[in-house]
């Protein structure tokens, strides 16, 4: 455009035209997103289940974007050991991540304080019925309280035992160790030699040691809280507690506190532990770098009141302060859908709570199939009390003290009960 022609335009007219030409594509873009239904930005936060978590989430987000081009999803993580601090800081900021992956240990405390959105209306939407019904009822019961539904259950983690079959076979106890606690003790003693230990159990609170302790307590018919949650429910767990104490006293475990959970796993992989208490994501590592021995997955021997497996579950929640709740719900529906959650669970070796995809999962991983089909139905999770994590953290020093041989099973359960009663 020549200078002469330019002089024909006023500055205001030029700016109007220029501004308009810039703005038109944005307005059209925004309108087309709105026409597609949803727009805006979402932030999702989750603890990592794999070193490749961000890559797996990017796959889910990319699929979501195909149907919702107007919604941008940013993924971020918290670390498991400090999840409460990081999530609390987010909620306290007033602009927390919109979508939150929360485990059953912590979400009740947030729900009680009103920082989570009650999702009852969305979950009960008739249009979503088939999807809702695909999720096992026990999982829904872990995601709600009398005041609402606080998330959509998506994943579960089973705390299974890994056994070194070579060590058990060499000691002649492979077929018997799982029959009773006495058999487990005999197997542990038979396989403990030199720097090889029969059993390992987590002992540190920072390793969430209570996950390894729970099945023995549950198998005895005990739990943290009684049925109406009015007091502790540990009565009956004394013998189970004594059994765990005896394992440590018999020196068939690494000395209390000497080796953290990762260290115990490293010892197992090195063939130095016969019966190792672990978690299903570790199966991936064993499959990727097979140890020089035969191994299998198992659960603890039955107790006097049953045969349970410990597991904890994760739900996808919406922050009450989210400014884009409809988009957050759309994203949760997408994340929880069969293809997405199934692919993710397969990638990180976690359990799903959808009953409709179980048979399609883990085709190439017989150990995972075994866990999904045999272990998951036996899972007894934590009681979703708002103070459940506080209770577990506060009773754990008593467990440590008893593992060190300073308390009997009876004394330990009595002291733990007192602590829980104070907190209820």
């Amino acid at each position, binding site marked *: 455009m020549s200078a002469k022609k330019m002089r024909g335009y006023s500055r205001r007219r030029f700016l109007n035209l220029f501004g308009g030409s810039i703005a038109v594509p944005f307005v059209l873009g925004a309108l087309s997103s709105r026409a597609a239904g949803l727009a805006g930005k979402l932030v999702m936060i989750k603890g990592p289940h794999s070193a490749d978590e961000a890559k797996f989430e990017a796959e889910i987000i990319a699929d979501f974007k195909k149907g919702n081009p107007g919604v941008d999803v940013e993924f971020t993580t918290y670390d498991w050991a400090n999840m409460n601090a990081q999530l609390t800081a987010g909620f306290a900021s007033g602009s927390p991540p919109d979508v939150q992956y929360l485990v059953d240990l912590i979400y009740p405390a947030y729900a009680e304080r009103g920082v989570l959105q009650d999702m009852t209306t969305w979950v009960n939407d008739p249009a979503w019925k088939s999807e809702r019904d695909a999720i096992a009822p026990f999982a829904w019961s872990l995601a709600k309280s009398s005041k609402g539904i606080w998330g959509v259950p998506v994943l579960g983690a089973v705390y299974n035992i890994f056994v070194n079959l070579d060590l058990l076979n060499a000691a002649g106890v492979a077929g018997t160790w799982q029959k009773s606690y006495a058999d487990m003790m005999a197997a542990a003693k038979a396989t403990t030699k030199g*720097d090889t230990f029969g059993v390992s159990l987590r002992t540190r*609170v920072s390793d969430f040691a209570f996950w390894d302790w729970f099945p023995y307590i549950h198998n005895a018919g005990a739990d943290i809280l009684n049925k109406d949650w009015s007091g502790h429910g540990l009565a009956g767990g004394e013998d189970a507690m004594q059994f765990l104490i005896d394992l440590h006293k018999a020196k068939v475990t690494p*000395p209390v506190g*000497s*080796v953290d959970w990762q260290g115990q796993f490293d010892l197992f992989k090195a063939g130095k532990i016969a019966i190792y208490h672990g978690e299903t994501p570790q199966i991936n590592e064993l499959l990727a770098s097979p140890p020089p021995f035969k191994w299998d997955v198992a659960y603890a021997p039955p107790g006097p009141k049953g045969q349970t497996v410990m597991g904890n579950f994760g739900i996808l929640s919406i922050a009450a302060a989210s400014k884009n709740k409809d988009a957050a719900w759309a994203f949760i529906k997408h994340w929880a859908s069969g293809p997405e959650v199934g692919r993710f669970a397969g990638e990180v070796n976690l359990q799903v709570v959808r009953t409709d995809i179980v048979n399609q999962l883990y085709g190439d991983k017989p150990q995972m199939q075994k866990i999904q089909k045999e272990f998951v139905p036996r899972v007894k999770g934590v009681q979703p009390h708002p103070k459940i994590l506080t209770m577990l953290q506060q009773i754990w*020093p008593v467990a*440590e003290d008893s593992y060190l041989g300073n308390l009997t099973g009876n004394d330990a359960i009595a002291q733990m009960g007192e602590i829980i009663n104070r907190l209820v």
Partner: protein
Amino acid sequence: MAATPSQFSAIEHQTRRASAALRRDLTAYAFLAPILLFFIVFMALPVVWLFYLSFQNDGILAPARFAGLDNWRRTFADRLVLKCIGNTLYYCLIAIPTVFVLGMIVALSLETIRRGAAILRVIIYFPTLQASLIVALIWTFMIHPDFGLLNIVIRAATGVKMNFLGNPASAMPTIAMIEVWKGLGFWAILFLSGLLALPLDLYHAAELDGAGPVRRFFSLTLPLMKPTFYFAVIFATIVNLQLFDSVFVLTDGGPVNSTATIAWYIYRSLFTFSDPGFGATLSFVLVIVVVSLTALQSWLMRARV
């Protein structure tokens, strides 16, 4: 009656002097304003807010609810609070004297070294610059029961495998040892700066009078270093009473709460137990402990400095 020239000049002089003083004060306040503002916003107000929170329940995620003296009553009834205070004082009693004695020995050695002194000072100061997480990782590998270097040496000498952090009796001394290692460089350099500032003529006179190195150390160095020690004791107490990083990374308060410190319990109450009122009360307890101990030390040492 009109003022005489001499009266006028006296009044004018007084006014000018007052106005100059006012300008000087205002200038001083203007220079002080940023730090005063920082102090008020980041230190004074949070302390006041903490005190307010100590009479409330919630207040971070949910609206605060007045709780009266409940949190204070809980503080005195909670056995873990007493254990945390005891553990923290126990740690201070191990760590502070140890780091002072070692720091002084290193400072005296550095003072006498002529060649390579600068490099040695950097090397000795280096651990102080490391993040607590790095220090914790280094020491995890040093004291690991199976492959830790320290444990290998101990096992070779005694045949015993030490479970440093897993044993309630040794866990806190181990953390103190790690903190001493980390802080040694700082204290050594501080003491060295004190030593280098001592008047040499006194030492020459003492030497002429026949005083040997030991006599000179006890009769000259230690008394002359009192102002440095005065600062060091108070500063070290304030810093060490807030022990948190190593505990959080290495033991998380265990085993059996043997390394649970006040700062650790504050963190746990605020962020894990979602109990900000109680956490605020504990924070205030820590403030009271720090201020009381500092005042006591200040009073005891001022008389002697």
